[in-house]
């Protein structure tokens, strides 16, 4: 059947099973918008800024495990999308971003709204394409989805010149694709798996450390089964929260810069470390020289380049996390392998001692709202069942520490790039994915203003997101570093001239609430959660000088934490 390039794009998205496209129109993509207008299968969500489109598509992907799709115009549309693309890239999120481009004959001529989108995005995509011939369009789109979603996932940009969207070609949905240069591994090497198991069964002080890869690789179920079977302690990275039930006794909390004392101490003292779908990020390892110096390290990851990149490992296993864990479970059961129960008992006794420091405790107050208290209560009021997105800063760390995630895909934050402005649009994506679930955006008065315009999108589509704004009148995380490391010289971290968020929310057509006293926190949260079909903006006026503890200063070892 002969279709225009624009029709091919839309038809392809339908055939690929795409439900939502987050986008913003402009000259170079008008043919595509016209094709969208003429059909009902693919729903286009009009955001208010292209950064919002990419973050929303990203939030959708994180909340579902399916690829997110964004559509933007050439030039400024594409450059506005870059922050979202880089955010997805750093966290390995499957995203397909369609960017319009000026007509082929104008490329390179500094045409109106021309930028080299392929060049600009190259360092922050898994791959990108410029479509030069409408006959290649369907196949390139197929490759884009295939590359974005397989192996270690990531964003793929497809740059489509306007004339290509007008030209016609035969369309058939490409079911099969073959890429000779891209064949991601899936199964782990059996010999390596057996060597790893031998080490695990001999361990006296084992520790499991897992990252976002377990969630991306659909490995939560097998991870939970394996961890319980072995009785080993486990910690998750900021990206990995929810891969293992946060309320379970074997869970030691998050590790790293603002991780728990018990998780970091157990990392430091373990003799066998089992790293799964994690990448030894500097916010996790602290000083790599001192990192897990007593441990033999096993590393399971789908990306060979993650292995021994920052920390040398002893037993690398390249493969899909879920496959490898299932294989481990099979062998353990078949051979009836047993960990060293006696040694584990002593190890747990030590861990319980560390746990007893209760490192997340904070001073409650009757006068001023403690941010930790808000999150603790948010967890209770939502019964741990919400999808929680966050922005970047102190509130993000408190959310990670105080909201216990029992399931994967529920905790959605920009871990790798640390993008302020991510929270609200990501919540939109999550809410589209789960229209009947509670979606909460935990944010700060600094971050929320970076994509505040999306409140308008939320009204248009009736997204009942609950915004928890921890308003400390400071760029809190910046202020904290200035307090600790710059002798309290608070350069540019005070947020002056803030808007009245209640009236701001109201002027966008939503419900606004200001909460100033600790006693009002729980009633306000309950009231907000009852408003099932309204977006509620809760502006919590919190303690201005609260800091995130514990903290490992950059460059220190995991056993050198600052406790309260």
């Amino acid at each position: 059947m002969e279709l225009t390039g624009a029709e091919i794009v839309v038809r392809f998205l339908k055939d690929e099973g795409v439900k939502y496209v987050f986008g913003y129109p402009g000259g170079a993509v008008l043919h595509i918008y016209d094709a969208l207008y003429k059909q009902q299968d693919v729903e286009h969500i009009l955001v208010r800024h292209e950064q919002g489109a990419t973050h929303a598509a990203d939030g959708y992907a994180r909340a579902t495990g399916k690829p997110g799709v964004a559509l933007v115009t050439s030039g400024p549309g594409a450059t506005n999308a870059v922050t979202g693309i880089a955010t997805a890239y750093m966290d390995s999120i499957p995203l397909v971003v369609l960017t319009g481009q000026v007509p082929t004959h104008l490329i390179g001529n500094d045409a109106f709204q021309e930028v080299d989108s392929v060049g600009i995005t190259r360092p922050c995509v898994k791959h990108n394409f410029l479509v030069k011939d409408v006959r290649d369009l369907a196949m390139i789109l197929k490759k884009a989805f295939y590359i974005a979603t397989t192996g270690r996932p990531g964003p793929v940009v497809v740059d489509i010149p306007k004339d290509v969207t007008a030209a016609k070609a035969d369309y058939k949905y490409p079911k099969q694709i073959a890429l000779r240069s891209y064949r991601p591994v899936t199964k782990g090497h059996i010999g390596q798996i057996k060597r790893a198991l031998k080490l695990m069964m001999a361990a006296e002080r084992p520790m499991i450390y897992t990252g976002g890869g377990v969630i991306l690789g659909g490995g939560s179920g097998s991870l939970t089964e394996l961890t319980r079977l072995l009785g080993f302690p486990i910690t998750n990275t900021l990206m990995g929260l929810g891969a293992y039930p946060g309320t379970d006794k074997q869970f030691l909390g998050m590790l790293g810069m603002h991780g728990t004392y018990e998780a970091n101490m157990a990392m430091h003292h373990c003799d066998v470390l089992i790293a799964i779908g994690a990448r030894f990020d500097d916010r996790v390892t602290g000083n790599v020289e001192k990192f897990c110096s007593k441990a033999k390290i096993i590393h399971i990851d789908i990306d060979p380049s993650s292995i021994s990149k920052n920390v040398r490992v002893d037993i690398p296993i390249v493969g899909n996390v879920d496959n490898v864990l299932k294989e481990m479970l099979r062998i353990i059961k078949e051979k009836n392998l047993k960990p060293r129960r006696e040694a584990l008992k002593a190890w747990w006794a030590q861990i319980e001692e560390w746990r007893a420091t209760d490192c997340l405790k904070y001073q409650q107050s009757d006068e001023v709202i403690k941010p930790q208290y808000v999150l603790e209560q948010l967890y209770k009021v939502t019964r741990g069942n919400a999808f929680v997105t966050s922005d970047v800063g102190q509130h993000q760390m408190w959310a990670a520490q105080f909201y216990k995630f029992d399931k994967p895909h529920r905790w959605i934050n920009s871990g790798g790039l640390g993008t302020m402005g991510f929270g609200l649009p990501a919540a939109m994506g999550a809410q589209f994915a789960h229209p009947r679930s509670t979606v909460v955006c935990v944010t700060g008065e600094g971050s929320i203003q970076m994509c505040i315009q999306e409140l308008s999108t939320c009204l248009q589509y009736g997204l009942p997101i609950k915004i928890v704004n921890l308003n400390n009148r400071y760029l809190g995380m910046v202020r904290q570093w200035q307090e600790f490391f710059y002798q309290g010289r608070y350069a540019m971290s005070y947020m002056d001239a803030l808007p009245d968020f209640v009236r701001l929310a109201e002027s966008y057509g939503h419900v606004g609430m200001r909460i100033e006293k600790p006693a009002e926190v729980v009633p306000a949260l309950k009231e907000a959660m009852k408003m099932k079909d309204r977006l509620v903006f809760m502006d919590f006026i919190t303690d201005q000088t609260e800091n995130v503890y514990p903290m490992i200063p950059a460059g220190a070892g995991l056993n050198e934490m600052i406790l309260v």
Partner: protein
Amino acid sequence: MRHIISILLENEAGALSRVAGLFSARGYNIESLTVAPTEDPSLSRMTVVTRGSDEIIEQITKQLNKLIDVVKLQDLTEGAHIEREMLLIKVKAVDGAREELMRLTDIFRGSIIDVTGQTFTIELTGTSEKLDAFIEAVDDKLILETVRSGVTGIARGERALRL
């Protein structure tokens, strides 16, 4: 350690910049880089000369393999291999220097490929080391211009980099 990495990559627009971009973004060093299509027009063969510890070279090969356009690669320096680079050098050749330069070219098995009353242009192939030695041997004051192709290489024996 110096490594010569041979890469088969898709002969696509942008493939070269993906490789070059990878090296600059990750701070890896490139001593030379050459690229040209192969007998199969859909494939290019690239040769990169780089330096780094074993860990860095391991990362470089892994990161290269991760690029979607990279089909296959081989670290030539891991086995016996042949390395060749071409040098074209234009030198001032007057009076006694003419004799001297002809002798030097002979010793290095180069050839003089262009002559004027004032200059010689000499062509020389070999390992980078040999070309360095030749340039070293020519009096600095005589050198007008040099151009080097960058290193290409191939494995010795039956080892071949192909699909």
